[in-house]
């Protein structure tokens, strides 16, 4: 097999290596700008910066310890109104790239001239944990990431199995940093565009190099595979636990009972893109008689109403595009495990319709496409018992 990819030597740390690579690419005019997380001057948050000046690139963090803004949302904001005329490299986590791909299919982003660069993601810390002490948080993140320990990360990151290229193949270039043992990373093309970029960067090497790269690639993908298997097992277990905790009307309402209707989960969701959210529209703002009638039928009505409808309805709108990033849970001020619940709903719903959100631009959106022969278990079979009964009665 042909060794596809190159070695990115990281003598001065992985971040430095990625930054130097990006600077070189800017110098060679392979990209005109880079969209990448950068620590804010206050040193308590990270924000995506669209960088034109290479000097600012020095401050970038390709893998920040937290995700205050989902990168898919940043890419959507950049390209919603049309495709890019200049070439931009977006350095994002795999879940952010998957969200960008979903947004593109939903016609809310354009990936023309945008090069998606992803990295093996160790997860991110919950925002609230990080904010208690940003410096200590960053150190804790670095240590856990180096050891492949996901226990301090967000619950959805702890059960993520789409953290690398194999399970999230939509990126143009992927940087494999999963402990390679020798302080180097591999940079792997995920598309023809990625291969062209590696060629332009003169990162295709001679015979001797090829063997070394092939070795490293093999070691890296074996390691990724190992972690994916372990994560899948953990995911199955966690989803079973979440389901046991929320299944049934009573437990479900208990789960969402502390919801304050702030709709933060919807606002930060990368794939919740509607300009006017149905659940904030006048469709659900009704005359008082309506509420009185509902209170009469139920005995009482909680205000603001439609809390459960918001969560279930939102799931029906975005579960098929949900990338299980966990941004919703990070944004919840009431610590409702909304990301874990949605990750369960999304996995099951996408399974039912044979779809994986953000896997590729080619898979059609599941509610747009259909097959003539499918899902027959949804159709209620017609048993003519009732007919016979009535014939006898007559």
């Amino acid at each position, binding site marked *: 097999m042909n060794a596809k990819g190159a070695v990115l030597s990281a003598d001065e740390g992985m971040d430095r290596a990625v930054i130097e690579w990006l600077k070189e690419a800017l110098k060679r005019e392979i990209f005109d700008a880079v969209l990448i997380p950068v620590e804010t001057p206050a040193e308590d948050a990270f924000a995506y910066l669209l960088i034109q000046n290479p000097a600012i690139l020095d401050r970038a963090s390709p893998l920040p310890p937290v995700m205050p803004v989902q990168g898919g949302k940043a890419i959507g904001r950049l390209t919603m109104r049309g495709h890019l005329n200049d070439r931009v490299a977006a350095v994002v986590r795999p879940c952010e790239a998957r969200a960008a791909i979903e947004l593109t299919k939903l016609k809310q982003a354009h990936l023309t001239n945008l090069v998606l660069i992803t990295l093996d993601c160790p997860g991110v810390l919950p925002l609230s944990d990080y904010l208690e002490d940003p410096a200590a948080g960053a150190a804790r993140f670095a240590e856990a990431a180096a050891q492949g320990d996901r226990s301090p990360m967000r619950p959805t990151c702890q059960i993520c199995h789409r953290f690398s290229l194999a399970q999230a193949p939509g990126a143009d270039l992927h940087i494999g940093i999963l402990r390679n043992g020798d302080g180097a990373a591999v940079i792997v093309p995920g598309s023809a565009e990625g291969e062209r970029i590696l060629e332009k960067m003169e990162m295709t090497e001679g015979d001797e190099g090829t063997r070394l790269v092939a070795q490293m690639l093999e070691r890296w993908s074996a390691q990724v595979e190992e972690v994916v298997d372990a994560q899948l097992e953990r995911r199955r277990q966690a989803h079973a636990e979440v*389901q046991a905790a*929320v*299944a*049934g*009307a*009573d*437990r*479900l*309402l208990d789960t969402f*009972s502390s919801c304050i209707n702030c709709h933060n989960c919807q606002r930060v969701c990368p794939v919740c893109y509607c300009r006017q959210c*149905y659940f904030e529209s006048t469709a659900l703002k009704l005359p008082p008689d309506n509420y009185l009638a*509902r*209170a009469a*039928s*139920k*005995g*009482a*009505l*909680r205000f603001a*109403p*439609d*809390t*459960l*409808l918001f969560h*279930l*309805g939102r*799931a*029906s*709108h975005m*579960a*098929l595009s949900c990338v299980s990033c966990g941004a919703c849970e990070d944004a919840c001020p009431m610590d409702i495990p909304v990301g874990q619940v949605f990750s*369960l*709903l999304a996995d*099951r*719903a996408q*399974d*039912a*319709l044979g779809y994986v959100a953000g896997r590729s631009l080619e898979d059609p959106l*599941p*509610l747009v496409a*259909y*097959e*003539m022969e*499918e*899902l027959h278990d*949804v*159709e*209620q079979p*017609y*048993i*003519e*018992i*009732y*007919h016979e009964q*009535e014939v006898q009665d007559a």
Partner: protein
Amino acid sequence: MSEKQEFVPRIIYFMCSWCGSGGAETAAAHHLHYPENVIPSRVNCTGALPAVHILRTLIEGADGVVISGCHPGDCHYEDGNFRARRRIALVKSLLDSLGLEPERVWFRYVAHGEGRRFVDTAAAFNDHIKSLGPNPLKTRSDT
């Protein structure tokens, strides 16, 4: 007066305006009866019935929802019933994951001429919901 009150479910029957409600018309022409607690609600096409309406119906007090559209290949809009089938699969998956009884939602094709099938569906679903019992969400005030 009966000493024990029988459970009378509230059932919403969403039908498309071409085949589903056509089936209801045929049933009427033949003087076929269906349970009075089944409340018909016409939508233009089952493919145009949002998942949210099904969920909202279940949260706001219905014990069951039954949806009828044209047979495959007969849709007035070519493919509305195929889209509906996908959307109902989604709703059923969500309800199933959350332990909210996906069997409270039925999807069955009824053609314009199938008045018998329409009343049978209403009667069979009514009996099915009676055996399931009341929807636990309908008495919860904190939804």
